């Protein structure tokens, strides 16, 4: 089973991104489960959304505490939320940022002081990609499509074709722009598993 945790701000699209991912995984014949932190739908408040993927029905109902992948949709959330908590060793943390990965250093309960964090950190400037395709505005770029392209690119968890197939179920407007942004993020992250 793979477990993915999205961190975002209310209104940024973390919940929708988690649903698109679950839908895409479903198209690949897998069992998937997606749910948000319940009842925290205030705009701007930190929210988390969770996805589980498996080859059999997923029984567990509690929130994801030891994810394989963490997605941080706004880099500044790292100051407020312990995003790396429980991340499995060898796991991956994907951050929407224009800064290099090396500029992010995680400390705290899950990190051994003086040691390199036991997970990969990858940054992608998703805001830039979203704005280039006219998704959202400077204050709140809409990155739920490109963030999934980037996740597919860096993890190989899901195929970009499956994501493209799932998009129309959740994106009511500017579908073509979202598709382009998704693919650009996918390509930019090097299509590496």
């Amino acid at each position, binding site marked *: 089973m793979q477990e993915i945790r999205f961190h975002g701000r209310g209104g940024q699209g973390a919940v929708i991104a988690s649903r698109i991912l679950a839908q895409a995984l479903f198209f690949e014949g897998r069992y998937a489960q997606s*749910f948000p932190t319940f009842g925290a739908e205030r705009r701007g408040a930190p929210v988390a959304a969770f996805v589980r993927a498996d080859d059999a029905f997923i029984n567990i109902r509690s929130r994801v505490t030891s994810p394989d992948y963490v997605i941080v949709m706004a880099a500044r959330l790292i100051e407020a939320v312990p995003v790396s908590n429980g991340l499995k060793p060898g796991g991956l943390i994907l951050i929407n940022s224009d800064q290099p990965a090396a500029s992010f250093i995680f400390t705290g309960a899950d990190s051994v002081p003086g040691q390199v964090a036991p997970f990969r950190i990858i940054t992608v400037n998703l805001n830039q990609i979203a704005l280039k395709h006219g998704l959202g505005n400077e204050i709140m770029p809409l990155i739920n499509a490109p963030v999934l392209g980037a996740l597919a690119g860096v993890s190989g968890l899901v195929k970009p074709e499956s994501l493209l197939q799932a998009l129309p179920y959740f994106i009511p407007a500017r579908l073509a722009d979202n598709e382009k942004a998704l693919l650009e993020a996918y390509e930019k992250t090097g299509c590496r598993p």
Partner: protein
Amino acid sequence: MQKQAILLGSDAIANGVKLCRPAVISAYPITPQTHIIETLSEMVDRGELESQYIKVESEMSAIAAVLGSVSAGSRSFTASSSQGLAMMHEVLHWFAGARLPLVLVNANRALGAPWNIWSDQSDSFSQRDTGWLQIYCETSQEALDTIIIAYKASEQLMLPIMVMIDGFILSHTMERLLIPDQQLVDDYLPAYQAPYRLDPDDPLTFGAAAQPDLFYELKKTFSETMSEAPTVLKNCEADFRQAFARAYSPVMRCPEGDEKSDTAIICCGAMTGTARVAVADLNKRGLSTDLLKIRLLRPFPKDELCAVCRDKKRIIVLNRACSYGVGGTLSQEVRAALYHLEQRPLVNDVMISLGGKEVFPETIAAVIENREELSSVDCNWLK
């Protein structure tokens, strides 16, 4: 034919309701149930579902509206949660007493004060004595299937049935399930033919005043019908298994549990899924535990429960509803049912969650690991 899909729990329920072709829907929005009736209203609006959608100003009006439509012989649907279900209370009694069939979906949620919108079974447990059947579901698939089964059983018994899902935990979670096609459901669930109904051309008196002796007689018959309800429900579940290849029963043993273990966990609702994960791990670690799911709360399936608990020494009941000053409500039901066993097992009453307090597999595992410390008299609250 059944189609694979991945849906939010509330959408799965709306699809289940749609397949049952209710002629009338009336409900009032309340978190976390709102998505169900919103989806249904959109289906009606798009013409996918031929149904009268009656907008009302309160849950009291919603249940009263369907009281009328069912009396007139129309299959109907309503849904609610928490304070909304409490507001329906008076009419819930009337509905059952009038022997009217209905399926109501309740998204379990805490009742204030203090204000809380998260999962808690106190709302529906508080309605145990209204004369409704109560069925608790573990997954969205189970909820969808149970709605179809419930309409069939309800119309055979001429009794209303409340179908429970855990608010948010099921309603707001997207998961994979099978949606049966319409023909399959139509074959299983024939159109509702009311044996009696409001009809100006054939006047009948409904629920008129009954003198004490007649009242007593009617309630005796009512109670007898209730005690036969598990049999009717089991028949409907058996027919369902034939047609849809999914099995349900009033009490279910989970395969993750160890049938031979003398210790069993009992719970109901979506928490069972997490308990499956916990129990599977416990058994792997040599802490042998069985896992039983109570699906039917009213009437309580005491024969079915006694049959699977006969050889147990310890029963640990995980509660999500409290009768304050007494303990877990589900524990009381279990204790009462097992009282007549010759070898009564120890019953540990554990309040595992209220108001959405998260239950992890580790939470459940810790209860089992420390089972010797549990009181068998008082309610065990988490430290």
